[in-house]
């Protein structure tokens, strides 16, 4: 994507955000325009456009995957909470990561905390330590599936 297009997309995104925050009112757009420009400038300074561009075509698939797994994760932990501690068999697990450092890995750790059974403990180098609620859960396969989704989202290779 060209630089101009990325900038326009971000301006559009922040303008939508302002419209939402102002609850659709039209009288604040002078301040809104300043806020949109400031937000775009800040986003370029913090996240320069060419690095880790998100592929918008992969976004719906990723969001669907995320929603389905949050519901599954929430449901699973809710059932465990109802059964109490006898439903648990916690364990630590080391997971070697295949994703490139930076935004893709940070997204992985954050999303893993919302997926069934896992919470990230610490990332050292290429290895992520995880806490697993029950050691028989297929967390490694699920983490790999999430990795593939994130790789597709960022257009990276695992």
């Amino acid at each position, binding site marked *: 994507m060209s630089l101009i297009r990325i900038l326009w997309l971000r301006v559009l995104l922040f303008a939508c955000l302002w419209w939402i925050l102002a*609850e659709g009112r039209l009288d604040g757009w002078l301040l809104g325009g300043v806020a949109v420009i400031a937000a775009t400038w800040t986003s370029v300074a913090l996240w320069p456009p060419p690095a880790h561009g998100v592929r918008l075509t992969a976004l719906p698939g990723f969001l669907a995957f995320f929603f389905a797994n949050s519901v599954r994760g929430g449901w699973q*932990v809710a059932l465990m909470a109802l059964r109490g501690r006898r439903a648990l068999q916690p364990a630590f697990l080391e997971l070697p990561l295949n994703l490139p450092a930076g935004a893709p890995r940070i997204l992985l750790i954050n999303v893993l*905390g919302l997926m069934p059974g896992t919470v*990230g*403990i610490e990332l050292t180098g290429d290895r992520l330590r995880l806490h697993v609620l029950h050691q028989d859960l297929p967390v490694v396969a699920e983490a790999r599936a999430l990795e593939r989704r994130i790789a597709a989202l960022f257009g990276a290779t695992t």
Partner: protein
Amino acid sequence: MTDLIMPWISGTLLIVGAFFYAAGTLGLLRFPDVYSRLHALAKADNLGLGFVLLGLALQAESIAVGLKLLLIWPLALAASAGVSYAIARRADSLGVKPWCKDSP
């Protein structure tokens, strides 16, 4: 037609949300150590929040207000995921051992 159905859909979503909140709180009270409790908060409560916000957004008087409610969810998710990672990491570096079935 939508006026008739919408309150029911909204009400159902709110009840589902309340169930996940209750389950998350139950997990917080019943789970044995800090790591397991983080699971209950990070997953069940966030899902509950999502359902409650969706239920409220359906009742909003304009699209912008509804979207504003939905916008709370990703922000709360990001905060919650970051905070639970920070708490787990700190607990681990302080040497807090995870609860095991065999230990008392």
